[in-house]
């Protein structure tokens, strides 16, 4: 019987490179095949929804960070508003709730005004960042909710392993929707503060 000799890698290091390259490409090929949606869905029917929920959770951490950034920008805006008030010389007969812009030609006033505009832009950008993400998540969760409900309703003869998984995912979706509503309320509160600050600036 003919003996099969494996190449002696220790004596031929360049073989390491060839083996590693082939192994790496094979790894990518196998992983790619397993991660194709059709294959994954066949092997793990709930994997897609679990992945979506994982992505949504990642978005939630970005939304939380975004809300914190928005609050920080609003605080800076408030500080600038207070600085403008200090620069302003108001006659006593005027209402002091919304103050006029610093008079033109006043260097410090112009600087504060320019900084105000730049800070307002940054604050609105932070607000839009969070609002846009929440808009996506809202639509996605509604869609997942509909799809899972119809899966449960229409699939009464589903296997005993699939139905509990679907119910578990549905529960998570509903929890996520509740959390989203909380973020939505936080964003609304912060947006109202921004509108108030903007109105003060426009009326001055």
């Amino acid at each position, binding site marked *: 019987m003919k003996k099969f000799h494996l190449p002696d890698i220790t004596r031929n290091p360049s073989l390491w*490179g060839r083996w590693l390259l082939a192994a790496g490409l094979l790894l990518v090929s196998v992983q790619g095949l397993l991660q194709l949606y059709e294959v994954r869905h066949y092997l793990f029917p709930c994997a897609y929804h679990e992945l979506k929920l994982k992505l949504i959770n990642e978005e939630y951490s970005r939304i939380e960070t975004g809300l914190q950034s928005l609050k920080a920008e609003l605080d800076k805006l408030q500080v600038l508003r207070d600085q403008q008030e200090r620069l302003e010389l108001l006659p006593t007969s005027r209402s002091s709730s919304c103050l006029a812009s610093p008079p033109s030609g006043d260097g410090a006033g112009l600087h504060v005004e320019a900084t105000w505009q730049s800070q307002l832009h940054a604050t609105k950008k932070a607000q839009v960042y969070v609002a846009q993400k929440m808009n996506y998540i809202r639509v996605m969760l509604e869609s997942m909710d509909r799809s899972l409900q119809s899966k449960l309703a229409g699939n009464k003869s589903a296997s005993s392993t699939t139905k509990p998984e679907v119910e578990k995912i549905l529960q998570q979706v509903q929890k996520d929707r509740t959390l989203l509503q909380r973020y939505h309320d936080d964003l609304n509160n912060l947006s109202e503060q921004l509108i108030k600050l903007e109105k003060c600036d426009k009326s001055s």
Partner: protein
Amino acid sequence: MTEPSNRIYHLFPPILIILAVGAFLLLFGLDNRPFWQDEAETAGLAKNVLKYGVPRAYDGVNIISQEAGKEYNHDFIWRWSPWLQIYVVAAAFRLGGLTTYAARFPFAVLGLACIFLVYRLVQHNFGNRPWALMAAALLACCVPFLLFSRQCRYYSLGAFLILASLYAFREDWQTKRGPALLLYFSLGLLFYSNYLLFLSYTGAFLLAAGLLYYSEISLARNLKLIIVTGIIILPGLFLFSIQQQVAMISLEGISKNLGNYFGDFFQFLIPLPVALYLGWRWGRLLWRRAGLPLESEERYILFLSLIILGNILLLSPIPQCEHRYLVHLYPLCAIILGWIIIKTWRYQKFSGALLGLLLLFTNWLWVLPLDWLGLLYRPVHNDPHMLTYPNLPLKLYLSELSSPYPDVNQNLIRFFKTHAHPGDTILTTYGDLPLQFYTSFKVVGGLQGHIPLSPPPDWLVLRWYTRWNRHYDLNESEKLIRQLISDPTKYQRVVVAAEDEIYGNRADPYFHHFVPRTEPLSPIVVYEKISPARHNP
């Protein structure tokens, strides 16, 4: 006597087979889906060129605008972007009629020309047929490139002009007039395709050429190149509102844009492992002070790589960071990857074959390494049948070609053609431009900015994806529609049995759907004005 294999080779040259496949992929079903917003902008302006001779944003009924009116002057002449693509479409309309197929045809043909030029560039300059064929095959199978080439936009035009400039550069442009003229005009016309392409590519190209081919370039010819190209682009500097757009350049977002561009680059153009290998290979040469590669093929690969790197660096200060600004780099990447495959085949046939299959028919080598490193960018709204997931891109692409896709713009056009009456006005938050092109209604809203409304519109389209303007204020159309529907006695809600996608037939891999979503997100919602005249028979 000729060997049978040689006879077959001469009868059916592989490049012809590749071009035939490319032609099918580029030209078949070119009008399966209607224009999306940006395409409709070009098509609408081209339609007006046929009427007025120049791209006019207003045709007496509708206004074409996506920048709140900044794109045109007081006489509505378009100043925002160069006109070459608009006139190409106008010529196509003149010859083929006002159809989707006619508008996209010239750009699809230019995409096919890019596949041929990639082959020719390599074969003619290096005599390496396997490399040339592999590069052409890679580009022909490159689904993002195919998608962009099938758009009624400058993308394949820019790629073609860049390849033409590279071709001219490798010819003896220093002494021969033909290649010199080709170089001047390809760069000059690139400006009239898209300024950003011109600026980012030309700067990178000149720097890379100076670094690697300094011994072949004379100062006199270089100066001539700069002067002649400058003369060609000079009228455009006065005609177009470049200074308005230059004012938008921001240094703040450079690091973020660089991250986004490199992310896109490794996710769709050159796989990260390949880029790391090239970086290691050339870094090792420099470290050992062995100098830059002298062998002409590898020197050329380094040249293309430096162009790509310089291109991305020059794009980074531009605030609008979009994948479409990298499309002209796909042919260069095909050349680089073709070379890598041939070298790998020579190193180890099994790995070469496997690498070739992975790069031609899958996106796994792009997506998976980034996923493993936690660097993959996959928007949360993406579906598993998109290019941000491990997939067989050609299979998805062919699925779209073979089955009609329920395009959002198609559904809106169909809805209004069926339900709206002549003379009706439609106010929409987005997708106004496709409606303007394909219907005879007055369509307002979108990103036009100020909307004069008298009388109130007959139809409202509130898309689920909310849009803000560049100042991060809600768009006028969004505010107005929300205001109008707040009174339930004025408009009634109509749900169209079709999905409301964000864009439609946008080619960008983060937004392009080949097949309907696994789970539709949101239906199209339209509001119809309640009035006795409309509802009484």
